[in-house]
């Protein structure tokens, strides 16, 4: 619909920063993000985290709804394949993401808007690095305007 949250809005002396919604699996990536925090690893402040029980919980609706709500990017992170707390949640999810990613591209949405990654609870560093990477990709794409409605 329109721009969510306020703090990262463009101001005169700061360059534009994207707003990214991150769906993190409770058992790994969320813990990884936590670890990154306690280890005082710098990661970009662009993401807003939604904790989910498993990456298998992520319906394509969540991702597309985030885009229609005006988030500039969506990040999904789960346990490494093979390590899912529910054994195969992320494997089913991975197929879903593959399709969604290709379809978004086919429909003309820049594929970089939506990113997927795996990070375990022990990988605080990896988590920070990949979040930075995702942020840079989205930043390059600029604001997400395609889903904006006219008022």
């Amino acid at each position, binding site marked *: *619909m*329109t*721009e*969510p949250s306020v703090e990262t809005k463009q101001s005169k002396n700061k360059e534009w920063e994207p707003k990214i919604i991150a769906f993190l699996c409770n058992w790994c990536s969320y813990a990884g993000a936590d670890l990154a925090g306690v280890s005082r690893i710098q990661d970009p402040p662009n993401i807003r985290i939604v904790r989910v029980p498993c990456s298998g919980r992520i319906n394509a609706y969540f991702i597309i709804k985030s885009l229609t*709500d*005006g988030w500039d990017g969506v990040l999904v992170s789960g346990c490494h394949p093979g390590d899912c707390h529910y054994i195969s949640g992320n494997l089913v999810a991975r197929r879903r993401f593959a399709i969604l990613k290709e379809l978004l591209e086919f429909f003309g949405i820049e594929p970089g808007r939506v990113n997927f990654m795996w990070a375990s609870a022990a990988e605080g560093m990896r988590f920070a690095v990949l979040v930075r990477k995702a942020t840079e990709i989205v930043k390059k794409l600029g604001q997400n305007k395609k889903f904006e*409605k006219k*008022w």
Partner: protein
Amino acid sequence: MDEKIFAKKDIGKLLEELVPEYKFYAPTKIKGNIAFKEITDVKEIELDYLNSKVPPKDVLFPQKEIIFEYKYEGKDVIIEERKDLEDKILIFGVRPCDAYSFKLLEDFFASGDFQDDIFLKKRENATIIGLGCNTPRQSCFCTSVGGHPFQKESTDVYLSDLGDIFLVEAISDKGKSLVKKLTWLSDAKKADVDKAKDLAKQAEESITTKFNFDLVTKVLDENFEHPVWQEISESCIGCSSCTFLCPTCTCFDVIDENDEYNNRGRRIRIWDTCQSCLYTLETSGHNPRPAKIQRCRNRIMHKFSYYPSNYDCLGCVGCGRCITACPVNNELRLIIDKILEIEEKSGEKVSA
């Protein structure tokens, strides 16, 4: 002579003169379909057309329409009413059946305890320029519902297509004052008027689809529970094309679009259709029209039985859109045949 004429190539002049005052809607081609859209450039106007895919009711009762907008200011909610309802609208080139549909729409939106201010205001501010049909289609049956391919009554200004020129007749008071303002129109000759009459006669004769709706209404009223409805609904896939493209269908759904990030929102109405399973779904989960049999029946009953009893006229203008739109060819002519067969069969029984 009261009738006027103007050359088709002067349509630009008409547009130019009326655009400052009116939102000028006319048939145009969009992705291969004829549609009534607001026109600013004469090149967009398409004069050579049978009829539009989506009926011109879309101008006054669009698929999506904002009812009002609201915003939050502190603890208050401030409602902003529509400001464009006073705009004057002109719809050019409306076929007689569709022109008549505006009367049916008005009947509906003005009836009951609550009036639909948005529609009625727009209707009041709208001027309809009708255009007679020289070439009715196989699917046209306006003459069976009290209409005519050259019917003028529901228009404000009425045009006949005489090849290179339009014959102009002012019908309503609104139309008369409009025509008076167009000082550059020339007077029609008797030959023009006669030609229009000939065309009208030819057009009427070329209509092949004919129904006896008095009988249909009677049979419908007596056969709500007849097994024929099973047969009628058998092949229907519930695609809603017949209702979405119907010029007299009035059903809509109301939704709120809440933009919580910007403390604002709007109430919207969008077309709805009795062919959808959601249409009658109640909050409890009960659905009084759970299957296609009830939904198909509702469409036919509404147009040919409920309308006659509520408004004393048929709820159909004979444009034939539902006939051509149905992808499984479950078309009105076949449906009516099946309904009338009930009567024939019972007649046979009585006489036997």
